[in-house]
């Protein structure tokens, strides 16, 4: 949630009072959560709503890893798929309930992230490609017929015995709340400040006493947890799925574009990006995918060229201009 306004001389506008900040933080968590909780009274398509919530959580996960560290995870779907299959294994092999299994899906994604921590040694395009390769490797592993007894291999996972449209819907609402809370806390925390410093200049951050590796690892694991929870609740919601569905690279791309469109490094930007763009996708992407791809491509180009800060940056700029026009500075 953009909150900083600077005047022409760079002086930051009045700092919000602590109670106002706490109120804004609380609203940032509660308002989206409440809107999603109430959305089913307006739109009866619960699978669509769950899918949008899943993308809100994924966009927030990208926000955590990209917005706070600069790592662009093209293989982000790997954590999503790990969460979905973790949930399936918990139900099918361990006999866990759906809620516990969804949480375990998040834990499985974190474990995968732990294994992939060495990827954080890479930067830029190297990291993006390596994370993509890791996700593809994980998809191959899960769909290996030799693992049929665990993952059911390429034959797909079936969670229909725990299927509950209502249960998965409320679980998705709860996970949205967790994701919003995580980003709000991270943004306000010293770790969040340190991650922003690391993103700006890791050498300077290190001389400031910041353990760069530990800070990045924290963001990486949190990001994986969010994707794993999203994958788990998505698996519960659709109940039958194949490896190709939950390890699809499109999931990563959507999450990244949604986050960038709304504005990474902010609290509400990824939520707005996910809701707006997924509704656009749902409106035309299914019936006329070629037009959607065209629109998606144009959106990506516009973001890259003119709006690197996303919609949030536009709002901040507008606030700054208003503040200047009204002399409301300092």
């Amino acid at each position, binding site marked *: 949630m953009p909150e*900083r306004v*600077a005047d022409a*001389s*760079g*002086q*930051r506008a009045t*700092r919000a009072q602590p109670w106002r900040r706490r109120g804004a933080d609380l609203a940032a968590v509660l308002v989206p959560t409440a809107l999603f909780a109430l959305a089913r009274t307006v739109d009866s398509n619960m699978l669509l709503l769950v899918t949008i919530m899943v993308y809100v959580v994924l966009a927030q996960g990208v926000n955590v890893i990209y917005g706070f560290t600069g790592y662009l995870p093209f293989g982000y779907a790997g954590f999503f798929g790990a969460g979905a299959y973790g949930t399936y294994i918990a139900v099918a092999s361990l006999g866990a309930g759906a809620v516990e299994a969804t949480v375990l899906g998040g834990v499985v994604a974190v474990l995968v992230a732990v294994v992939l921590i060495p990827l954080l040694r890479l930067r830029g395009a190297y990291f993006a490609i390596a994370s993509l390769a890791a996700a593809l490797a994980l998809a191959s592993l899960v769909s290996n017929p030799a693992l049929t007894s665990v993952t059911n291999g390429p034959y797909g996972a079936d969670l229909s015995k725990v299927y509950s449209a209502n249960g998965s819907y409320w679980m998705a609402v709860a996970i949205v709340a967790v994701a919003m809370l995580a980003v709000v806390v991270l943004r306000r925390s*010293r770790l969040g*400040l*340190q991650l*922003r*410093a690391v993103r*700006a*200049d890791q*050498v*300077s*951050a*290190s*001389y*400031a*006493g*910041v*353990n*760069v590796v530990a800070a990045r690892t924290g963001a990486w694991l949190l990001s994986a947890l969010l994707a794993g929870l999203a994958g788990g609740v998505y698996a519960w919601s659709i109940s039958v799925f194949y490896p190709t569905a939950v390890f699809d690279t499109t999931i990563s791309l959507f999450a990244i574009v949604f986050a960038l469109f709304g504005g990474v490094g902010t609290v509400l930007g990824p939520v707005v990006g996910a809701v707006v763009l997924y509704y656009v996708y749902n409106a035309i992407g299914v019936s006329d995918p070629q037009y959607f791809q065209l629109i998606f491509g144009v959106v990506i180009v516009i973001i890259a060229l003119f709006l690197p800060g996303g919609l949030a940056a536009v709002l901040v700029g507008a606030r700054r201009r208003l503040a200047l026009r009204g002399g409301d500075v300092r």
Partner: protein
Amino acid sequence: MFAESASSAPSNEAPTADGLLEVEGVTKLFGPLRALDDVSLSVKRGEILGLVGPNGSGKTTVINVISGLLVPTSGRVLLEGQEVSGKAPFRLARRGINRTFQIPKPFPALTARENLEVAHHGSALADGEILELVGLGGRAERLAGELTASDQKRLDLARALVTGPRLLLVDELGAGLSKTELDELAVILRRLVAELGMTMVVVEHLMGFLEQVADRVTVLNAGAVIFSGGLAEALADPAVIKVFIGG
């Protein structure tokens, strides 16, 4: 916070306090390039050592090795007798070694105050006091990226000070500053030594500035130490004159 100015003319004699930093036979190779060649130097507690030499002589490489940005190819760096060579900068920052950069590297999207909040806090001084000390008291809420180059240098110094360094490595902080700003900086550095007991290695081209702050100088040329002693003696030393003037 601080007593009256401590910018009295420094002595050319090394202080008698114990040694804080020892650089022993450090060589640094970049492929075939020998950036440092068996460099040894020592800095005593409470001393300001000036590090001078022509461009490319290895001054910043020495700073980079001491501060952990580079691992020496051979040789070692000791802080209070304990080897610290090759330790990560964040560990050294927490152990009392910090530095400024020739080109300041603030976090541009954070305010000056937030730039200090990021840092590990090892100083006895509060952030506000440190900002006042370096002359940024009135600009604490400004975004670092929108500060002037001179103020970004002050912020770079402030961020290093927050960590409470016992050894501060100052890399050409005076470059590009006006005479007045240089005089202010000299006062600040001398105060840090006199009142906080800090020890410093100051890389600088400006001899006038070094005259104000340095107790001793070490002169480097082509990665090797060619002189160590008082600044006046250095300026009269034939080898030093040859390096700087030629002939």
